């Protein structure tokens, strides 16, 4: 049973560019949450998707957007990249009707130069 898979694992972009990160949730899960983890910090909640809609959002600017597809997979898009966007981006999946337990992927490490 595959867990949460994320792609790409590493990528390098320059300031002003745009990036798309992808996530496939654990089989049977219907909810996807995205987190940003800067070096030496805890994960910061970006947003959560359920039924193809953004249900909750953390304190992130509109440059951060997402999407959930009918098969529950999800994308995170970041526009106009800044140096401060360099971080590990973690996708976590869960079942909306179940207990609040997240299954995390290994993350996508974004470096902005």
């Amino acid at each position, binding site marked *: 049973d595959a867990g*949460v898979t994320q792609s790409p694992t590493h990528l390098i972009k320059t300031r002003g560019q745009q990036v798309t990160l992808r996530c496939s949730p654990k089989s049977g899960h219907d*909810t996807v*949450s995205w*987190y940003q983890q800067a070096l*030496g*910090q*805890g*994960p*910061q*909640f970006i947003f*959560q998707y*359920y039924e193809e809609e953004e*249900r*909750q959002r*953390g304190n992130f600017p509109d440059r951060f957007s997402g999407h959930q597809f009918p098969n529950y997979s999800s994308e995170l898009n970041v526009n106009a990249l800044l140096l401060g966007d360099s971080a590990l981006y*973690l996708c*976590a999946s*869960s*079942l*909306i*009707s*179940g*207990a*609040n*337990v*997240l*299954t*995390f*992927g*290994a*993350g996508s490490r974004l470096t902005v130069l």
Partner: protein
Amino acid sequence: AQSVTQLDSQVPVFEEAPVELRCNYSSSVSVYLFWYVQYPNQGLQLLLKYLSGSTLVESINGFEAEFNKSQTSFHLRKPSVHISDTAEYFCAVSGGYSSASKIIFGSGTRLSIRP
């Protein structure tokens, strides 16, 4: 709103010694508490959780945590650590039982084990 404070950014201990990683939370509603562990170059894994029932919860690898409502704490303990416990540990809180509620993480405590 919920928030989590992990009081120690790093905790060095000798192998087979006991350890306590401290966590305090604030919440204006019902609280559900978690400890996640992150091994080097990996994502986070659930270590243990408090959702209801007994205030003392245990993991399969010897860790335990106690929900203390009066002190708003959820400290993580292990009586004897091993080299393999070297990792970053994150305390987290949620205001809801179901996945509809977001989980907020602390800044983490790096546990380093000395032989």
